[in-house]
């Protein structure tokens, strides 16, 4: 195990009603996922602005995952439908600009799926770690 084993920094936007509750449930069941995943609570997945995602990458995040309620379960009826459209277009554009598409992901996690939340975070952290540091969307000034 080298000393400075590269650990990806992952920002997770979790919607307050479902995926944040799923994350809490993962905690209740003491399920383990990497500590590099940091969760930001937003009222609904439709609150996440593409600017936040680009801001996270600029500040040094290596992967950004957006969790919301399953389509149809959204507490605000249509929030996650808009997220789905916005992120489909944004991810397609990022891929178009040549940025690795595995760095961004949208995942639907309900309040009852603690296990799925932990598993998703583990899987996403592994994928992002495999990609290595975010070289294509980084702002050198923010690097230590």
């Amino acid at each position: 195990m080298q000393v400075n084993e590269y650990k990806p920094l992952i920002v997770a936007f979790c919607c307050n009603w479902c995926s944040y509750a799923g994350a809490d449930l993962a905690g209740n069941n003491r399920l383990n996922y990497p500590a590099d995943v940091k969760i930001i609570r937003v009222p609904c997945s439709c609150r996440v602005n593409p600017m936040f995602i680009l801001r996270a990458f600029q500040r040094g995040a290596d992967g950004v995952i957006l969790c919301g309620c399953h389509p149809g379960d959204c507490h605000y009826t249509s929030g996650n439908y808009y997220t789905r459209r916005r992120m489909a277009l944004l991810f397609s554009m990022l891929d178009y600009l040549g940025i690795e598409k595995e760095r961004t992901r949208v995942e639907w996690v309900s309040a009852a799926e603690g296990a799925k939340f932990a598993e998703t975070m583990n899987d996403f952290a592994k994928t992002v770690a495999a990609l290595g540091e975010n070289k294509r969307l980084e702002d050198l000034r923010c690097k230590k």
Partner: protein
Amino acid sequence: MQRIGVFVCHCGTNIAGTVDVKAVAEALKTEPGVVFSTDYQYMCSQAGQDIIKKAIAEYNLTGIVVCSCSPRMHEATFRKTAAAAGLNPYMVEIANIREQCSWVHKEVPIGTEKAIILAKAAVAKVNLNAPLTPGESPVTKRALVIGGGIAGIQTALDIADAGFPVDIVETKPTIGGKMAQLDKTFPTLDCAACILTPKMVDVAQNDKIRVFSYSEVTEVGGFVGNFEVTIKRRARYVKEDICTGCGLCTEKCPQKKVPNEFNLGMDNRSAIYIPFAQAVPKVATIDPNHCMKLKTGKCGVCSKVCTAGAIDYEAKDEFVKEKYGAIVVATGFNPISMEKFDEFAYSQSKDVITSLELERLMNAAGPTGGTLLRPSDHEHPHTIVFVQCVGSRCEACAEKGKEYCSKICCMYTAKHAMLIRDKYPDTEVYVFYIDVRTPGKNFDEFYRRAVEEYGVHYIKGMVGKVSPEGNKLKVQGSDLIYGRQLHIDADLVVLAAAIEPDKSARPLATMLTASMDTNDFFTEAHPKLRPVESPTAGVFLSGTCQGPKDIPETVSQAGAAASKVIGLLCKDKLTGNPCVAHSDEMMCNGCSTCEKVCPYGAISYVDKEFRMPDRTTKVRRVAVVNEAVCQGCGACTVACMSGAMDLKGFMNKQIMAEVDAICK
């Protein structure tokens, strides 16, 4: 610059176990804006809250960050604490360092480092918080109960008792639900009808309760305190207010061959029918798929016979729009279908029945008038085999059964066994069980009486196969304690089928935006602390729609749901959620992109005169948010290109500050 206080909670060892709370408190001291940082054993305890109050006064803090458990648990608590100390409750931020840090990361250094980062993110956010005051919205003093079983009835009665008007919407022609189909109820063996029908009569006579039977909810709009519900009253072809329920039409109706759902298809009824004698409302209903008049236009006997002239063949489905302050879901359960369990030959022999069918057979109003006879040849069964856990406790991915234990089968099987042994002492009763689960008051004693006094043979082991031979049913099962394979020639096999939520629950959940678990049971706000509320404000859960439970529990939960509804309806004003959208007039283009994405239609436009930057005045169309209707989802803030629309409590700048603090 804000003056921020940071309070790190040990939560006993839940947090302190894998996070060095002292180090977190220390690290936060140097954060910009932080003037006080401490840690304590139990922040949410009275003593913990006093520390916060004292610190607010002493350091005249303008904002506090509590690093503790999930905000979904104690955000409200700490907001009350802040309010009590004179600080605006929305200047409080919670860093979730328990469920999302100490409980999921085992090593202390990693847990501590993450806790510090999460705390810094919360500090960065609170630095940009502004004091918010929640708006208010009126409360419609009327409740809606969806589902007319014992759960719905009990909830409606309790709410009406408190003086609030209630509407019950029931899909069947009468209220009563599954309990009306039962014969006796455990553990006291008093007859279901005797304890249910008086309550149904109370519902009918209570002027505060209105029953929409043979109806269903098709659309739910609005939000807590101001729900707008559309109810579809299916055409009954009988005028409810005129029909006296004399039943003459049901006798005279020529079409007699309709399978009677109330008796689960074991006998027939006429096309125009009253489900059972004590039905409420006691009104006939014409079944459109079997009525000759409606299908082919010929016949019309019932309208000729009806003395009151209540028959109306031209009736159409009616849609009623109503406003409600609270909604209680009581959609109840159904036994699962037995087709997939062909090892028990349910579809091959009529003598293999489910427990609910046995209830009807033993019920006086049932197809056999109360004497237990075999459905195939109406003979008296001498050997009866009960099979427990059919479809319950199955493996998750098998689409056949359900993963959970259905909770009520052990008790009602003991009841059936006891009643049969008591009424027909010459019958041998075998019960194949995996474990007998009879927790609860007088439950286990009930089960022991069935074994000891009534001599029911309880066999620990599962039935492997039931094969009909001649008029006997060869049951082959293992007797694990004896260690032999048991072969019994039974006359009747009763399967204790698993129960699942009513099919109408899933579409209803989507309408109510209430969340459900993978088995379609409604998810409660908190399994232990708030079992009768749904996370969606204003929606309450009563009965088996929330999970398998027996009648005593259902009634107690119905009462709890009613008390919650009463608590809500007795308020004149509901303090709304202050984290609502707000548009900056100077920057708004008036392009109505936000109006299109708002799920609640909370945004309207007004023409206003503005002093433009280039010294001209211009009338511009700008967005205005109705703070009572807006629920604060934030879809409009992203749709708005110029960032004029922002969400109080989750401002763009605040979220970006959190991102910066996390990625530092």
